[in-house]
C-alpha cells in the first residue's frame, strides 16, 4: 500500500483489520484491510461477488465477521446491528433503495429515529430538520412528497438525507450510479464533494472504472474476497484497474467492423403497450432494425423498455400498433409463433424468463424446440438427442459446468447467461432481442456475450439491444434510439452522437428543446 505520512487532516475515521467472513461455500472476505480518512472519497472497486458488499454489510452490522476488527474513530467497535453502526455515525445508501414508496419523504427519513411529541409523531419537527439538512448540503427534497413517484435521482437524495439526519459522518454508497443517467451521476458527484468538504467521509462502491477515476481520492480494488491494492487515481489508469479487478488483461473496447445493413427485419409501427397496472408505458413507438445492424435502445430503467421488449417477444399483448418480423405480421401473437418466425430472445430477467432454474442444462438448452424432431418423435421426448445437443452447445459456448445434468439454478450468473445465449443464438434466427444481456455479469462474461452479439450482427442478423448501460449501448450499437417515458425521443447513428448528448435525451431534454 502506498501510504503517505498521516497529517492531522488525514486522520483515519474507520479501519477494518483482518476481516474474514465465510459464507457456505464462499470465502466472501479474506483477511481484508481497509481504511478511510476523514473527508475523503475512498472508492471500493471490484466485480460482482468480489466481496465489496460483504465488507460493507459487515461494517454496517448486517452481518458479523468471523475474524478481524473494525475500528471507528480510533476505538475498536462492536457492530452487531445497524443500530450500532448508526450510533457510531455510519450511514449506508444501499444499491436497492431502502425506501418505502407509500411513505412520505419525512416518514422515510425519520423511520427508526422518530421524533415524538405527546405520544404521536412530530412531523413538523422532522420537516424542519430535513429542510435544514437540504439547505446545508444542497440536497433539494420536499419532505411532504410521497417517495414512490419520485425520480430515482431524488430518491437517492432522500437516502443521503436519511443518513445525515442520523448525524452520519461516514457514508457508504453502494453502487449509487447504477440507476442514474450520466447527468444525475454528475449531480451525485457534486453532492459527494460537498459532503466531503463538510467533513463527511465517503466509501464509494462501484464497478465502473470511469467514475472511480473521476471522483475518488483513493481506490481500493477487491477481487475474490481479497484486497488487491490501494492506489491513487493519479497513479493509475483504466487498463491497470481493470487488470487488477479481473486478474488478467481485459479488452475494454469491442472490436467490430463497419456494418453492412441489409433489408429491414423488424418493423415496429405505432406500438402502444400497457403494463400490469394498466398504465400506458409505451406510447406510439415506431422504429425498424435491418439485418446486419445493432439498434441499441438507451434509456434509464423504467422508461418502458421492459414492456416494449415484452410486447415484441409476445409476453405481453400490445394495445395498439403493429409488429412485423421479416414481413410477417406478428402483433400480439404468442411467443411460440414469434420464436418460430425467427426470434432469439435474451430476456431481461434471466432467472425468471430465461431459464427454468430447477431443470438441468440439458432441458434448458432445448426449451425453444423440444417439440420438434429430432428432440421429439411422435410426441415423445428423445433424451439422447437433447443430451447430444446440450453437450455440443456447452462446448461451443464455453459454459463452465461439471456436467450437463446440473440444474441451471446452480450455475453462476455468467454461465446461466451463456446457457441462454447458446440456446437462442444457435438456432437459425433472423432477429435477436437482447434485454440487459450483461446485467450483473463479470467482465469476462460481458466480453464473451458482447462478442457473440457482434458475431450475430456480422452474420446478417438484426439485433435489438436494450440496455441501461450507456457504455454497452455505445460499444455495440450501430444506431441508437433513446427511450424516455415510453417514447422514442431520438434515433441517431452512433458516430454522430456523444455520451453527453445521449444522457441529455435520456433525462428527457429532447422533449423540451426539440
Amino acid at each position, binding site marked *: 500500500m502506498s501510504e503517505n505520512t498521516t497529517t492531522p487532516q488525514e486522520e483515519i475515521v474507520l479501519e477494518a483489520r483482518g476481516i474474514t467472513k465465510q459464507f457456505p461455500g464462499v470465502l466472501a472476505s479474506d483477511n481484508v484491510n481497509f481504511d478511510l480518512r476523514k473527508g475523503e472519497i475512498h472508492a471500493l472497486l471490484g466485480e460482482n461477488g468480489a466481496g465489496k458488499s460483504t465488507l460493507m454489510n459487515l461494517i454496517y452490522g*448486517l452481518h458479523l465477521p468471523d475474524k478481524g476488527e473494525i475500528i471507528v474513530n480510533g476505538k475498536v467497535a462492536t457492530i452487531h446491528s445497524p443500530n450500532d453502526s448508526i450510533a457510531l455515525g455510519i450511514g449506508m445508501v444501499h444499491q436497492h433503495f431502502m425506501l418505502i414508496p*407509500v411513505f412520505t419523504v419525512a*416518514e*422515510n427519513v425519520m*423511520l*427508526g429515529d422518530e421524533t415524538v411529541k405527546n405520544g404521536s409523531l412530530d412531523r413538523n419537527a422532522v420537516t424542519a430538520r430535513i429542510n435544514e439538512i437540504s439547505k446545508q448540503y444542497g440536497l433539494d427534497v420536499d419532505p411532504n412528497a410521497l417517495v414512490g413517484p419520485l425520480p430515482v435521482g431524488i430518491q437517492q437524495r432522500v437516502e443521503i438525507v436519511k443518513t445525515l439526519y442520523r448525524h452520519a459522518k461516514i457514508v457508504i454508497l453502494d453502487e449509487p450510479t447504477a440507476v442514474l443517467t450520466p447527468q444525475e451521476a454528475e449531480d451525485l458527484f457534486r453532492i459527494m464533494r460537498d459532503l466531503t468538504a463538510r467533513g463527511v467521509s465517503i466509501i464509494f462502491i462501484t464497478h465502473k472504472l470511469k467514475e472511480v477515476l473521476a471522483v475518488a481520492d483513493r481506490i481500493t480494488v477487491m477481487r475474490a474476497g481479497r484486497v488487491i491494492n490501494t492506489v491513487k487515481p493519479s497513479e493509475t489508469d483504466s487498463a491497470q484497474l481493470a487488470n487488477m479487478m479481473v486478474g488478467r488483461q481485459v479488452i475494454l473496447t469491442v472490436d467490430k467492423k463497419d456494418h453492412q445493413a441489409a433489408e429491414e427485419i423488424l418493423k415496429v409501427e405505432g406500438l402502444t403497450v400497457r403494463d400490469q397496472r394498466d398504465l400506458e408505458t409505451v406510447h406510439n413507438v415506431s422504429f425498424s432494425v435491418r439485418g446486419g445492424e445493432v439498434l441499441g435502445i438507451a434509456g434509464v430503467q423504467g422508461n418502458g423498455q421492459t414492456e416494449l421488449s415484452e410486447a415484441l417477444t409476445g409476453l405481453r399483448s400490445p394495445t395498439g400498433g403493429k409488429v412485423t418480423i421479416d414481413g410477417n405480421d406478428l402483433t400480439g401473437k404468442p411467443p411460440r409463433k414469434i420464436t418460430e418466425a425467427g426470434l432469439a430472445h435474451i430476456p431481461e430477467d434471466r432467472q425468471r424468463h430465461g431459464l427454468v432454474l430447477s431443470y438441468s442444462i440439458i432441458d434448458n438448452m432445448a426449451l425453444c424446440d423440444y417439440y420438434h424432431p429430432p428432440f421429439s418423435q411422435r410426441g415423445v421426448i428423445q433424451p439422447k438427442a437433447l443430451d447430444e445437443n446440450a453437450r455440443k452447445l456447452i462446448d461451443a459456448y464455453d459454459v463452465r459446468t461439471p456436467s450437463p445434468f446440473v440444474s441451471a439454478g446452480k450455475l453462476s450468473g455468467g454461465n446461466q447467461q451463456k446457457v441462454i445465449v447458446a440456446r437462442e443464438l444457435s438456432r437459425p434466427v433472423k432477429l435477436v432481442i437482447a434485454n440487459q444481456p450483461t446485467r450483473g455479469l463479470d467482465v469476462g462474461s460481458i466480453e464473451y456475450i458482447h462478442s457473440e452479439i457482434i458475431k450475430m450482427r456480422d452474420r446478417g442478423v438484426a439485433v435489438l439491444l436494450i440496455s441501461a448501460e450507456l457504455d454497452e449501448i455505445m460499444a455495440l450499437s450501430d444506431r441508437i434510439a433513446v427511450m424516455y417515458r415510453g417514447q422514442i425521443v431520438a434515433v441517431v447513428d452512433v458516430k454522430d452522437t456523444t455520451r453527453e448528448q445521449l444522457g441529455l435525451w435520456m433525462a428527457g431534454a429532447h422533449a423540451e428543446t426539440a
Partner: protein
Amino acid sequence: MDWKRFSFIGLIIVVLFGVVVMVGQVKQPPLLIITSMLATTIAVATPLTLGALSGVFCERAGVVNIGIEGMMLTAAFFGWLGGIYMFHLFGLPAGVSIAFGVFFAILTGGLMALLHAVLSITFKVDQIIGGTVINILAVGLTGFLNRQLFFGKGSVFGGTVPGSPGVLPTIHVPITELFNSVCGASANCLQNVQAINRVFDQKPIAISAILLVFISHYVLFNTRWGLRTRAVGEHPKAADTVGINVVKMRYANVIIGGMFAGLAGAYFTIESVPSFEPLLTNGRGFISLAAMIFGNWTPIGAWAAALVFGASQALLINMQIFRDVIPPQWSFLQESYIVGLTPYILTMFILTGIIGKTTPPAADGVPYEK
C-alpha cells in the same frame, strides 16, 4: 378510503334499511324501525369490526392472517369456559366471573396468534397454511373439549352444562337525554328522543370496538409504533437497515391482532348469548377479512365495511320480526335462508373489486429473510 367506497357502503346500508322500513311500517313507525335497525347493526357488526382490526394489525405488519375465524372460535369457547369455572368452581360473583371470561378470551386469542406468529415468522411456514392450521385446530379443540368437559361421563361438570354467569350488561349512554328539555311537554318528541337513544344503548364490547377503531387508526397513522408497523409490512429490509427489529414488530402486532380476535370471540359467548355451541362463529372471521380488504387495510374503512355486513344481518333479524306483514309479492323475504345469504353474497360481490381495487401492504404474506 376514497369517497367512492364510502358512498357505496352508505348506499347498501340505505337500501337494506329501506327494505325493512317498507315492510315494517305497517307495524311500527319508521323512526323506531331505523333506530332499532341501527342499534342491531352496530351490535352485530362488533365481532366483524374487531375481527377486521385483528386482520389490519397482522397484515399491516406483513403477516397474512386467515386464522381470525379460528382465533375467534377458540376465544369464544375459553372465554365462556373461564367464566363458568370462576363462577362455579371458585365461587366468584357473576360480574367478576364475566370479567374473567373476557380476560380469558383475549388471552386465548393472543395465544392462538402466538402460534400463528411462531409458524409464520419463526418457521416461515406458508401463512395461508398457518392460518388454516389455526382454523382446523380451533374447530377440533373446541368441539372436543366441549364434549369432554360437559357431556362426557365423569367430566368436570358431570354431564350437565352448568349455567353461565350471564352476559355483559347494557350500558346506558345518556346522550339523547340531554335533549329531553328541548321537547318540553310534547309527548311525541319525547318518544322520538327515546327511540333515538336505543342506538346508544350498547354493551361494553360493542362500545369498546368502536373506540378501538379510532384508537387503532390513530396509532397506525400517527405514532411511532404505527409507522414502524407499517414499515415492516411494506419493506421489512428497509426497516431492518434503520435498526428496527422486524421479527419483534411482527410478533407483537400478530399477538395484538390475536387479542382483538379474542375480544371478538368474547362477544359471542359473553356479550351476545351466554352459551357455546360448536362452530358458532359461522364464517364471521372470514367476513371480517373481507371487511378489512374492502376497507383497504385501514381501521375506519374496515369498520365501515363491517357495518354493511352488520346491516345485512340486521335485515335477517328484522325480517323474522316482521315475518307476518311481509307483502305477498316480497314473499321471498320470508325465507330466512335466502335473506341469510345476504352477507355472504355481499362478501363475494365486494371482493370482486367492482368498487375499485384495494392495495395490500407490499410485503403482506412474505416471510422476512435477512
